[in-house]
């Protein structure tokens, strides 16, 4: 062992650049699930954006994977306190998906196969801040990690990066999703430690 681990023995860790308050670094990729893992055949897969007026923009798997894709590397932060640096994904930027969407709504609810939901303001999805990804580390995204496709919003706690995502509903008012209803924070900024309602 070449490195003496700081903070061993319960002493408070020194702040590490890139690590939000209260988080520790992991090299694993823990799997957290609130239910059974849905298995979605690619020929049944669909992703849609539905505006507040009910206008629907929809992509099947072939259409979706034909869109311009980006490969990017980001740090991710789970509310259960692990962070993982330098994760590499490939997918479609939300900016691309919203190109032809006319909407005046400021909020969205992400919906997933299996019934999971999470709310994210529209501003947090645009300007290169979020993607719908279908590859992790150069491989097709495994169902346990949210495949065929999941949302990635790396600047918010990872529960906002909905696994098995299949759509976004535009909303005029912010509404709580699955964990937000259960006591978690409406916004979830790891740098402000917005873990729970009232934080």
């Amino acid at each position, binding site marked *: 062992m070449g490195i003496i681990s700081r903070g061993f023995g319960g002493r408070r860790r020194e702040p590490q650049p890139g690590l939000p308050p209260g988080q520790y670094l992991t090299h694993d990729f*823990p799997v*957290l*699930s*609130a*239910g*059974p893992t849905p298995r979605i055949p690619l020929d049944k897969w669909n992703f849609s954006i539905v505006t507040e007026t009910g206008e629907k923009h929809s992509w099947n798997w072939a259409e979706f994977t034909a869109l311009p894709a980006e490969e990017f590397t980001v740090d991710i932060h789970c*509310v*259960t306190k692990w962070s993982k640096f330098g994760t590499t994904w490939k997918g479609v930027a939300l900016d691309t998906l919203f190109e032809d969407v006319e909407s005046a709504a400021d909020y969205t609810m992400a919906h997933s196969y299996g*019934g999971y939901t999470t709310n994210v303001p529209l501003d947090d999805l645009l300007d290169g801040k979020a993607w719908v990804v279908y590859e992790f580390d150069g491989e097709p995204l495994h169902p346990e990690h949210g495949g065929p496709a999941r949302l990635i919003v790396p600047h918010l706690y990872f*529960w906002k990066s909905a696994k098995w995502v299949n759509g976004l509903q535009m909303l005029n008012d912010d509404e709580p999703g*699955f*964990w937000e*209803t*259960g*006591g*978690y924070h409406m916004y979830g900024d790891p740098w402000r430690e917005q*873990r*729970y*309602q009232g934080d």
Partner: protein
Amino acid sequence: MMELDGNALAGDLREVFATDMTGAVFTCAGCAHTGVLATLRVWQPAPGLVGRCPHCTDVVLRLVRTPTRVFLTLTGATRLELPLEP
């Protein structure tokens, strides 16, 4: 009849919530299935406990612990039924 505030519930709620709840009968809001809480399928190392209906897999309850609080969300249950001590 007179209208009271929630303090009037104190005694009855203490009776409900200070007992072992695993024998309480839930009614699932999704499919109207009834069963004791002990029969829920619980998913655990999630950000909280998620209890799903054994019949339709809808979420019946969520329990989130923080260092200082506990949130119990029961939107998936239309009713809880408990036997009274004789």
